[in-house]
């Protein structure tokens, strides 16, 4: 598999922030994901959507980063939505019991609709 250098992009829509991790979430560069979310949380954003369309794989280091984001949002009573996840990611999150701590949507627009209307 071709290894892609991990990077993070983001945008804001309404009162939510959408984060786009790109590449294999498996080393210290994953800290950028936590930092990016932290910047939005620092600005008062409590709704974060992580769109995993360009991240197929995650290892224990990446899970640790995700735990940090979950913890940070929990401390401010915020919401984390994960979207566009590969089957491998879903299986991993499910097996680790992470699904109970996040909302999962097939695509980003579904998550944004839910955050806007409160309806699935």
């Amino acid at each position: 598999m071709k290894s892609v250098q991990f990077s993070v992009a983001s945008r804001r829509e309404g009162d939510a922030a959408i984060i786009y991790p790109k590449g294999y979430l498996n080393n210290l560069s994953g800290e950028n994901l936590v930092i990016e979310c932290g910047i939005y949380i620092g600005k008062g954003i409590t709704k974060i959507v992580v769109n995993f369309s360009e991240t197929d794989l995650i290892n224990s280091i990446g899970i640790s980063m995700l735990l940090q984001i979950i913890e940070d949002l929990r401390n401010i009573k915020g919401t984390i939505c994960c979207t566009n996840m590969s089957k491998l990611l879903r299986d991993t999150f499910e097996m680790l019991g992470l699904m109970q701590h996040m909302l999962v949507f097939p695509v980003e627009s579904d998550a944004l609709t839910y955050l806007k209307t409160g309806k699935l």
Partner: protein
Amino acid sequence: MSTELKKALYNISALADLGQAITSENNFHEKIQSVLYVITGTFLANKGALLFYDKPTNKLNTLAQKGFAPADLDRLNPEELMSLGRNESYLIGDDPVLTVAGAEILAPLWVRDEFIGALLLSGKLTVGPYTLEDLELLNVIANQIAIALNNHSLFLDLSDKLEENRRLYEEMRHIYHGTLQAFAAAIDAKDAYTKNHSHRVAKYSAAIARELGWNEHEIEGMYVAGYLHDVGKLAISNTLLNKVTPFTPEEREEIRKHSTLSHSITAKIKFPWKNVEDMVWHHHERLDGRGYPEALAQESLSDGVRILSLADSFDAMTSQRPYREKMDVQSAIGELRKNLESQFDHKVMLVFCKVLDKEIKGELPEPDILPHLDRDSDLSVISTLLEGIIVELSTP
């Protein structure tokens, strides 16, 4: 695939992640940070700390941590952790010793009989306590981390010792050079007219050797030979050394003994440099075999001897003597050229001229010869003279 199997595969891949984090080319801090992430990610812990035991201070230093209050970690007593046993992870429960840090699970880190530190975890995200399987996996991880930390600690010890040895060597070298300079000052003090002569000859000789492409160790040896070349004069009477009128044949013979005496003295010293005693012994030899003390000629004279001979003569000529006036620099250079092949070496003369010319033109950051020349010297005239000699001697 069952959840148990998936979990087992995840744990195996976490061990692989750990191996990768430990053996990565990252610096130590980054490695440890990655290791902590692997552990917290594997055990779904929102609190984790990796502590390293510093034997000299008997304290636990936090190498990496997340979620714990630093003050809580500081309250942990290393001796109490040591008494818990080796490489066996603990569910802390109500243990009064360990609850101080707010950790739920602890793995002491040992390598053989050496206490290395401890690994603490807490705040499991998924509801439910840590299990026996968690403890078993943590034991495996703790063993790997203990070995990695111990290796790092050994490496640091070795680096410290190496640094200490390097410092001691530099100190010794400094003392050694100080002693040599004191010796040289003692030699030069015997004769009011040769003040700093040994120092200058050492500088000139080293500058020529450097221009010839010698390595730093060889240059240092040349420098030392320059300092000590007249050490035998310590055994010659002050009256004779400071005599104003011309020497009688017997007195000249007595004065000439100084190079053999220099050899006798330096031969007793075990120098780390080659041929120092040979250089000081033969610095008054000539290429035509008419020098002293052994009347050696041509191939019998090493490059070091040839350098020292020219540097010594140049400084002698440009210094005041009780029985004659000092020469100006141009005349001294002319004298050296006149005695090429009979007394002085062609190659050494060429290099000497190049160094001095470079120093005059400011091409060398730390000049060795120029600062000691007569301040009234006309440098442009000297440079022109040197350029002419360089062209002449460079022509095959």
